[in-house]
């Protein structure tokens, strides 16, 4: 029963991962990836890693929500529901994909995987906590603080408000054709004054 369930979950994870590149919207792609991660999380739970499995589902739900918002925000497709092509740089992508697959497959085949089943009464969650806050604490804390600094930096860089005034002040939209006129409304050179004088004449 357990192996069959595992196989179904693995197939579902691969299928939903494949869907990420076949659907035509950022939102659909993000949440297809979430489905894949949920399947992986459940696999971890079955393999006696309850904390890692459930935490994967929790973290990925939040993360994919953030990712969907950011991708829609930075894409030319504002609502995320209009169809768009999700893949680009085909040749490079195929090469990188094959290389990645070969590398991961080699890692799986050459690493020494444990065969003994986890004893039922083992406190796996407590063991994980001791590992994270013991031997591996330096690695995790370094990674955590680096990520936090990156996030703070990204927020500061993308914020409109800043030390030297609004970030979009005096900015011009890119041209419709290469090197052409900027798109959108042209800023009025002399502000509201022209209109004011026009009224007097």
């Amino acid at each position, binding site marked *: 029963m357990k192996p069959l369930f595992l196989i179904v979950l693995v197939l579902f994870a691969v299928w939903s991962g494949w869907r990420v590149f076949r659907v035509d919207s950022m939102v659909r792609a993000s*949440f297809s990836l979430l489905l894949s991660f949920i399947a992986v999380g459940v696999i971890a739970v079955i393999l006696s890693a309850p904390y890692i499995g459930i*935490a994967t589902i929790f973290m990925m*739900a939040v993360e994919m929500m953030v990712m969907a918002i950011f991708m829609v925000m930075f894409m030319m497709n504002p609502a995320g529901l209009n169809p768009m092509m999700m893949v680009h740089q085909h040749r490079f992508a195929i090469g990188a994909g094959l290389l990645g697959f070969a590398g991961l497959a080699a890692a799986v085949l050459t690493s020494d995987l444990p065969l003994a089943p986890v004893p039922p009464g083992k406190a796996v969650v407590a063991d994980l906590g001791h590992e994270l806050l013991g031997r591996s604490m330096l690695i995790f804390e370094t990674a955590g603080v680096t990520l936090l600094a990156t996030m703070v930096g990204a927020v500061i860089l993308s914020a409109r408000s800043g030390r030297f005034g609004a970030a979009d002040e005096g900015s011009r939209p890119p041209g419709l054709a290469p090197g052409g006129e900027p798109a959108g409304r042209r800023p009025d050179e002399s502000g509201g004054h022209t209109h004011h004088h026009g009224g007097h004449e």
Partner: protein
Amino acid sequence: MLLLFIAVLVTLCAGTWLAAWLDHLVPARSSGRSAGPLAPFRAAAATLVRPRIETEAPDRMIWRLAPGWYLALAAVGLSVVPFTSAGALLDSPVGIVIWGSCEALTIVTVFLHGWAPNAPFPLIGAYRYAAIGLPIMLPSMFVLIAAALPAESLSLLVVVESQSEVWNIVRQPLGLPLFLLVGLTLTLRGPFDFADSADIAGGTSAEDSGPGRALWQVARLAMLVSFSAVAATVFLAGPLGPVLPGPIWLWMKTAFVMALAVSLSHAVARTTPSRMLTVIWVVLLPLSFLHLLVAGVLAL
């Protein structure tokens, strides 16, 4: 096992009805009108007979499935709650994290429910909700971790056992008020209803009608039941209590939290999303961090 399954099912159904009745009762009390216990069924029947609305180029699959996902998340959330001191239907060493995942997936579900119809008001509701729902996850996690500290475990059963001497609401008085705000967000209620509120014509449900709308409303109420049961377990010692059997105590405490949440949602006004974001990041987040700090020092 079968008994626990039936208990979860009965709690979900009866709790949903009670929540719906309370929702009719609280505004009726202030306006002087009466609302009988059958009022929710009349409202449900009226919703069910309405025809379905079709929008232009929606994502039909997600639109139809979202209410079901919401209901499923409520059911999973309730099944980690221990009904007796013997165990829960989903007895996991990481019960609190399972509930946390249900919270996070609820935000995704509400967003998708607003995104799928491909219509302006639902989409505005979806984005507003995501902006409020994501930061509210942080106080939620801090509050739940604080409750797990004295128990030294993420299992809800152990969290209940740790409250046999003194309840968490006494030990950590800020916990329940902060968690109630999380509950209002999860069930799209009152001051935290930025998804389905009247100011954007019903938000993510603006294009819902007929059975789909009815199921979505039922799922919202079911999520209120699950949230109340989790709050009762984490802060009010769940099934622990003298004389009466465990499930009765859990039901009474759940009903109490539910009444609290419903009256809060009808009594407090909603503010603009931007102002609410400031409140969450500047007030609620530091407050919950302080709460975790105090709980941690006390637990040492």
